[in-house]
């Protein structure tokens, strides 16, 4: 088996085995042994210019393209087209076909034709420098035409120095080229039918993938290469009004990107404006009503507030001259509400002669604390203002653990932690009570999370909060054990605390409480009226326009 395989060769085209001595495949006719041609022995067809071929020195053209073109054009007779890239190469004919020996010019005629078209410089270059032979170029032999070609090249062998020496060996090594039948069928030249006479005048491509096709490439005429005779083409675009309109839109879009646009204020309908003024008038009237009419100063005290009562209980258990940490952490906009809520508690602490240590995580807090403490019926003098605690949650955590590190001295450099009330304070847990006044639920949560766990059981945490923060602070009061021992909520919580303690409130606070009660009552009345109106409107609209189910596509809509 192995011997059989060694004596046969497999066709590279059809894959079938053939005897080793065969030159061509028995099955498909493909060549089995490569043709070996000594390139020096014989010139190739590509080595010489053929009829109609133009030789153009690319190196010279690259150096000076215009002069090269001008030189080329100067040799072209006036009125004739210059054919570039068109090379008439005689193709091997099938057996029996007449040989077109006319396509091969004698030596003199070929040289004359080539020199007639070549520029002088190029012609000299061609004569002095023979073109290099092309390697591995197959050259068919055997047919009469091929013999004629061989003779022609043999006559021109003076330009190929090694041709004579290598010729005998090359002729022996060369085998007649036979194209396989399937490859012959692919050649377009023979398969193209004879063109009509008018088409025969158009040039036919003889090389490359377009070989055999006519009129594919437009011949380059001398007029095309002459700049003076070239048709003039305008560089300006011919724009229609439609194009101009689109360009204007595009330019406007680009301009608008860099032009600041004024904010548009949507116009409020007149009815809404009147309604807004009406609401404002009702609110202002309710706020001023108890001030101008004593008959309307009869607001009832708020009911029992468990969280406020718990706060009061914590304060009642405080020892005399206790040290209380007071945090003023509300913004100035809420100072009225927060002051009204905190005053009863501060009055209670004042009665117990508690010493206040004031801090704030709000930069404006110390100033608000001074304002609050001096606005009491008797200014609160037993107070030390430490000042602003920077750093948010981290700063608060540091203060709770190491207050003396954060506030070593005051701004003037004097020591802070002197005196009977402050000498025993080393951490936040050393205070008897911590009171936080804030309008921000986030700040309240920060105090609960960062400070309350460090306080321990001996130091309760009380919150005086705005009404807007109460829903988020209340859960900390509901835990067991309570994280916040008591909550005083807004103006109402402050009044509830005062009512629990049966404290006398000032006339100012009493008037504010009456105005507040009337404003809340007016707001409730307005909201109820607006809700009823919207309810009736919705019911009326529902009757007029029954609701349609939501459908996503057209087919369901049609269904």
């Amino acid at each position, binding site marked *: 088996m192995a011997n059989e395989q060694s004596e046969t060769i497999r066709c590279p085209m059809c894959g079938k085995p053939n005897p080793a001595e065969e030159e061509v495949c028995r099955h498909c006719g493909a060549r089995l042994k490569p043709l070996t041609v000594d390139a020096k022995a014989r010139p190739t067809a590509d080595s010489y210019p053929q009829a109609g071929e133009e030789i153009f020195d690319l190196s010279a053209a690259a150096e000076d393209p215009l002069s090269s073109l001008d030189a080329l054009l100067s040799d072209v007779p006036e009125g004739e087209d210059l054919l570039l890239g068109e090379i008439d190469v005689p193709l091997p004919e099938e057996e029996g076909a007449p040989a077109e020996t006319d396509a091969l010019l004698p030596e003199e005629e070929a040289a004359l034709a080539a020199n007639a078209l070549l520029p002088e410089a190029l012609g000299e270059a061609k004569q002095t420098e023979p073109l290099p032979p092309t390697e591995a170029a197959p050259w068919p032999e055997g047919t009469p035409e091929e013999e004629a070609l061989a003779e022609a090249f043999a006559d021109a062998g003076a330009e190929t120095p090694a041709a004579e020496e290598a010729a005998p060996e090359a002729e022996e090594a060369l085998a007649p080229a036979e194209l396989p039948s399937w490859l012959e069928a692919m050649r377009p030249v023979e398969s193209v039918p004879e063109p009509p006479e008018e088409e025969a005048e158009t040039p036919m491509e003889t090389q490359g993938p377009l070989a055999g096709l006519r009129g594919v490439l437009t011949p380059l005429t001398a007029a095309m290469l002459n700049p003076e005779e070239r048709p003039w083409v305008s560089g300006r675009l011919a724009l229609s009004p439609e194009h101009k309109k689109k360009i204007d839109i595009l330019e406007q879009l680009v301009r608008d990107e860099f032009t600041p646009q004024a904010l548009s204020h949507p116009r409020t309908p007149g009815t809404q404006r009147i309604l807004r003024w009406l609401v404002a008038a009702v609110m202002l009237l309710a706020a001023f009503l108890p001030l101008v009419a004593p008959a309307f100063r009869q607001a009832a005290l708020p009911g029992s507030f468990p969280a406020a009562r718990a706060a009061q209980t914590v304060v009642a258990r405080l020892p005399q001259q206790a040290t209380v940490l007071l945090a003023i952490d509300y913004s100035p906009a809420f100072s*009225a509400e927060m002051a009204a809520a905190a005053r009863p508690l501060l009055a209670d602490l004042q009665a117990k002669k508690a010493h206040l240590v004031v801090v704030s995580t709000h930069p404006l807090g110390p100033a608000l604390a001074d304002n609050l403490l001096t606005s009491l019926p008797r200014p609160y003098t037993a107070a030390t203002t430490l000042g602003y605690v920077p750093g948010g949650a*981290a700063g608060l955590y540091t203060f709770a653990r190491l207050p003396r590190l954060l506030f070593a001295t005051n701004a003037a450099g004097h020591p802070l932690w002197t005196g009977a009330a402050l000498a025993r304070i080393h951490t936040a847990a050393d205070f008897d009570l911590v009171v936080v006044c804030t309008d921000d639920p986030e700040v309240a949560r920060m105090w609960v999370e960062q400070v309350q766990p460090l306080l321990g059981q001996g130091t309760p945490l009380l919150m005086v909060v705005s009404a807007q923060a109460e829903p*988020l602070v209340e*859960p900390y009061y509901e*835990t*067991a054990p309570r994280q916040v021992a008591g909550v005083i909520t807004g103006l109402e919580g402050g009044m509830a605390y005062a009512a629990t303690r049966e404290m006398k409130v000032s006339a100012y606070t009493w008037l504010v*409480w009456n*105005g507040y009660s009337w404003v809340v009552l007016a707001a409730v009345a307005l909201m109820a009226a607006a809700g009823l109106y919207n309810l009736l409107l919705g019911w009326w609209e529902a009757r007029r326009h029954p609701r349609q189910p939501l*459908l996503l596509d057209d*087919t369901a809509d049609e269904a």
Partner: protein
Amino acid sequence: MTTLIGTLVGFALTLFVLSYFFFRDWVLFRWVMALFIGASAGYAAAIALREVLWPMLLRPLLVLRQPLLLLPLLLVLLMLTKAFRGKVSRWGNVAVAYLVGAGAAVAVGGAVLGTLFPQSAATMDAFNFRLMRGRGMSWGEFVITGSLILLGVVTTLAYFHFGARPQPRRSPRRRGWIEALARIGEGFIAVTFGALFAGIFLAAAAALAETAQSLWLFILTLR
């Protein structure tokens, strides 16, 4: 005299703020807002310099010669590079990273130990009858309170369940029982937001009543 001028200025500024009711965002209202914001920012800057930078950083460093404070000073200088444009501002990232990292560590620890665990325990305590009875709650109150808390927690969580199934020709919908729970949870959420809005309105009502009182007293002093 000084008090009178101060009261007059306060009266005028208050009227300008209240003019928003009628003229919305007009020039005097905007001028008052700019004045308030500018004054607050200036005061805060002065406080930061007087109560933070000097007593906590510069004085200990320059007077008490505490070299450890060079590190905070370096962080302050690095943070200042954030005010510049270009590559210089990258140096401020070091200070920002330190602040964010330390702040996040403190905040997360506090949130877990101060809010998450205690609030979860408080929700479960609502079903501890012995504890609730210790707070003076009757059996009926305990049942109602516990049921409301249970229903509120479950239905609110169901409202934020967004798993839905595609349906032919209709928008995707949740399962029927989750949809029913979510509707109830929607009601609880609405009540919560209503309570928050009511709190905001009550705070504004207190401010309005106090402002009206101040204006009225000023008018009375003019007579």
